[in-house]
């Protein structure tokens, strides 16, 4: 039952499904990856059937995430081009964080912050994929210097990604009325008008 047929459609079912494949693989990768990142997180391997299983499974989950992330990248790349309005938005991001979002410049489907998130995640994902292949000893055996470099890059890019995802998830919790877009695809018109006025006008013709 649709509560309000005038709600705006923000995501297609395939887009949502794609996002959740990425999300689930990311969570599993972060938990198993952290276990090898620092001894403090090593007990997390128990979630995967023990440390050896965690080591075996982690790279295959990585392949799943790399492929599904590529899907998201292709779907949303054109919507994430940086514009001067985005840069202005970013320069005023401090106001937004403080909760005064009245004077923020008008934003399309995505604001500058979301676009930065998109590109940082895309770059990190590329780094993770390449470095992950370099250190995947079950299948590959690269030159030792490349493997060492891969280990450093993999750990660093992984830490950046986990930090960014904390921000991503928190932003969705903080901005009320957002999470439903990723559950069933719609947002209210009021939500769109307040947070993404450019997109609101484009969708409603107002």
């Amino acid at each position, binding site marked *: 039952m649709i509560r309000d047929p005038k709600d705006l459609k923000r995501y297609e079912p395939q887009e949502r499904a794609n996002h959740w494949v990425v999300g689930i693989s990311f969570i599993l990768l972060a938990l198993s990856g952290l276990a090898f990142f620092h001894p403090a997180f090593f007990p997390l391997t128990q979630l995967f059937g023990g440390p050896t299983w965690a080591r075996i499974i982690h790279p295959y989950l990585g392949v799943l995430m790399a492929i599904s992330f590529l899907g998201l990248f292709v779907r949303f790349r054109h919507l994430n081009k940086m514009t001067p309005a985005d840069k202005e938005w970013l320069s005023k991001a401090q106001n937004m964080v*403080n909760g005064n979002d009245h004077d923020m410049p008008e934003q399309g489907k995505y604001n500058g912050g979301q676009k930065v998130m998109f590109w940082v995640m895309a770059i990190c994902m590329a780094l993770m994929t390449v470095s992950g292949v370099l250190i995947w000893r079950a299948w590959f055996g690269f030159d030792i210097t490349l493997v060492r470099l891969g280990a450093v890059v993999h750990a660093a890019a992984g830490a950046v990604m986990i930090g960014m995802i*904390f921000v991503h998830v928190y932003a969705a919790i903080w901005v009320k009325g957002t999470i439903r877009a990723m559950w069933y695809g719609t947002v209210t018109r009021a939500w769109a008008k307040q947070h993404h006025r450019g997109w609101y006008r484009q969708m409603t013709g107002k």
Partner: protein
Amino acid sequence: MALQSLDIKQRSATTTPSTQVRETLEIAKLIDVSACIGCKACQVACSEWNDIRDEIGTCHGVYDNPMDLTAKSWTVMRFTEVEQNNKLEWLIRKDGCMHCADPGCLKACPAPGAIVQYSNGIVDFHQENCIGCGYCVTGCPFNIPRISKEDSKAYKCSLCSDRVAVNQAPACVKACPTGAIQFGSKEDMKDYAAKRVTDLKERGYEQAGLYDPQGVGGTHVMYVLHHADKPDLYAGLPVNPSISPLVALWKGFAKPLATLALAGVALGSLFHYVTKGPNEVAKEIEDEIEREDSEKEGAK
């Protein structure tokens, strides 16, 4: 295997101190390259004592057999022909784990207790804790550990820790027919090496010396080399080995800092929520849209 008669001084992926109280003797194996005849008795003794039988390989036209260390060959003789002082020299080096005082394998290992360093200096792999990631290979400055294709565990020379624990010399030492492999306290081995170096110098090897690289804090397997100024002559023995700066960065201070930063982001988000409150859709915008809707209804 856990050996109760040997204290564990350092343990992989463990952030609290291991046993430090008892003071035990630091041991070392000394390989006098100048006295080695390349008979490979040490390889056989290693295979026999440790119950490992590598695949019988094929002849590659050189004396090296097997051609490299494997999960089942923990020591191999490496043969090099070089010309020094207008003379052909046949250098034979017994390769294997150097048992570094600052072991790169142990530093890189993410599995608690898979790699330990005993207080006597032996670095040992405990395969029951090994997860098969190969980080020890990434960390080692001497390219020693090998991952088994059968069980995906890492293997290398244990310096016969099981023998040393009961006051026996390693199997290779026992088997060496020329006395090229010596075993004892590290101090005694240094003294013995000094005598050998003096002898070699008298015989015209001006640059003879002891290989006990300080870049890894010294090793518990040391070499007497006739050309200590050129260790790389001996099948690429590293000139000045140390843990790679990349490995040091990867396993050093960056990770605890990153962990703190991540915790900061997570806690920062929580406290942002409870101090600034949620970002809700303004009542006035909702009313505005409701008004527009009812105006539209009225116009019909």
